């Protein structure tokens, strides 16, 4: 049972991360390849605060969100000058840069050894030891992330973001301050990724640079794209599916040395297949089909 809760926790954390990516990419057209790096900033902030200053998750989480949002500022600067694939490549550079900082700033991050024994203290003397309680926290975080994404994408703010995504020149012609909107959405997206990182560090009680590499970013992007990056629940579906499939491989008796690259290959093939056949993702395509059927029956 603890194992099942473990899967729920990991899926919940990755769902929040995928939602944070879909918020900037799906709503504003700013697909970042640095979600794992921002997630790492949140995780390291919480780990350092908990280990060195004895601050529990209740205090560490807002700090992680704030620092992760600040760490997203370079992405916002890049977004003000770049679009599409140019922006993606700049975020790739930023991802590798931050991963290199995690690896090489040994005085703070302990380098490849990582930070261990992070206390699972939530508030004052409240410690969490069971996976079931953590699963609740992870689910609450993912639902809250979707709620924030829903609030932001449905209102006037969301309509401007959609306009920026579809045609920046129209948004400019309407007098909208594009830079401000991009800045704000990337800050919010960064804060959600930071919160996911904070929960990840507290759950695993250990952070090291291997969890925040470019491969992790591609995995998160694949989750969001497979589910449907422009939908609200698509990234959650994508995260659940792509966390579950590798776990199923675990029961097939394949050795770890084979399973790890096999997972990556599955993510790669899934990304190619979805991009070629269902560019709107699973949920986005299903929605599109339902809408066109409704129109036909009317």
């Amino acid at each position, binding site marked *: 049972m603890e194992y099942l809760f473990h899967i729920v926790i990991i899926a919940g954390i990755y769902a929040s991360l995928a939602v944070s990516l879909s918020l900037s990419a799906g709503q504003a057209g700013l*697909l970042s*390849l640095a979600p794992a790096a921002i997630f790492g900033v949140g995780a390291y902030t919480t780990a350092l605060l908990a280990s060195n200053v004895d601050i529990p998750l209740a205090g560490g989480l807002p700090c992680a969100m704030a620092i992760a949002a600040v760490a997203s500022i*370079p992405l916002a*600067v*890049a977004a003000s*000058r*770049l*679009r*599409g*694939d*140019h922006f*993606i*490549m*700049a975020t*790739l*550079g*930023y991802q*590798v*840069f931050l991963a*290199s*900082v995690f*690896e*090489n700033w040994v005085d703070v991050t302990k380098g490849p050894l990582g930070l261990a024994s992070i206390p699972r203290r939530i508030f004052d003397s409240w410690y969490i030891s069971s996976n079931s309680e953590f699963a609740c926290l992870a689910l609450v975080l993912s639902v809250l992330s979707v709620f924030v994404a829903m609030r932001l994408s449905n209102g006037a703010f969301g309509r401007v973001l959609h306009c920026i995504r579809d045609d920046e020149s129209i948004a400019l012609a309407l007098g909208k301050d594009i830079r401000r909107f991009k800045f704000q959405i990337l800050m919010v997206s960064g804060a959600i990724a930071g919160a996911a990182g904070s929960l990840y560090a507290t759950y695993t009680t250990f952070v090291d640079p291997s969890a925040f590499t*470019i*491969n992790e970013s*591609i995995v998160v*992007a*694949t989750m969001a*794209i497979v589910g449907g990056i422009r939908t609200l629940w698509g990234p959650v579906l994508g995260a659940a599916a792509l966390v579950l499939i590798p776990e199923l491989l675990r029961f097939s008796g394949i050795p770890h*040395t*084979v399973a790890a*690259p*096999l*997972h*990556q*290959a599955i*993510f*790669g*093939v*899934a*990304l*190619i297949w979805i*991009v*070629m056949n269902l*560019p709107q993702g699973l949920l986005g395509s299903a929605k599109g089909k339902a809408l066109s059927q409704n129109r036909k029956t009317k």
Partner: protein
Amino acid sequence: MEGQLSINVCLAATHYGLIALSFALVSRTAKFFHVAHCAIFTLGAYITFTLIGTGVGSVASVVGGVIVGSAAGCAMDLIVFQRLRRRGASPEIQLLASFGLLVTLQSLISLFFGNERHSLLNQPAEMGISLLWGHATPTQLLAAGVSLSVAVVILLWSRLSTAGLILKAVGDDPGLSLARGIRTDRAILIAFAVASGAMALGGILQAADVGLTPLMGFQALLVGFAGALLGGLDSNARAYFGGVAIGGLEQLGAMFLPGQWYESAIYLLLIIVLVARGRRALGERIE
């Protein structure tokens, strides 16, 4: 010390120049950042490693690695990118597909060969040859000579041959090229073939010097891409000299920055150049 540094700068410059040129050739013609190009770098090295392991001669193995690398690049274009282009996919979608290919190829190489470092030539460490200002091994000198020669041939071909001019036309304006009767898909396929062959050769030459790992291509992508952007992707020659400059900067950076930080400095430079150049990075003209 300065003498050895100048030799290291020359060796790195010729190597990165070829990578940047190859990256520029394919990305400019196909009009998207083809990141899976770096998987060809790794693939070429591993194919050569396998051929040498089965007893094939060194030169034949290198030729085999280059041919397979070139064929793999063409297969990527035919199976994935040509279809995407026909559906009118944006450069962003093509980039994502390219990432998918990169992850898949890199994982398959890791699956078949393991993650450990292999030695390509399987020979004891070479003695350095004493030059005027320092030392270099015969393999390093041969690699620099081959890289430089191949880069010069590609630059001359792209500037003087009809095929090279067609590639330039397609890169500048694919719509107009099509209207003038140029078969753009074929031109892009040629760019994939030539650039992939050059990239595979770059991988083989690096592997001959420092060995091979499944992740070697990703590093090549970042330095090659940073170099091509620094010079400008709108001209093959400038992209080549951008790569040469990155090679020089890397060696000079190693002198002034602690070893572990100079790589980060290159990534930072990549972002700065990209942001400074804006959307002109792929030759897009901004009114």
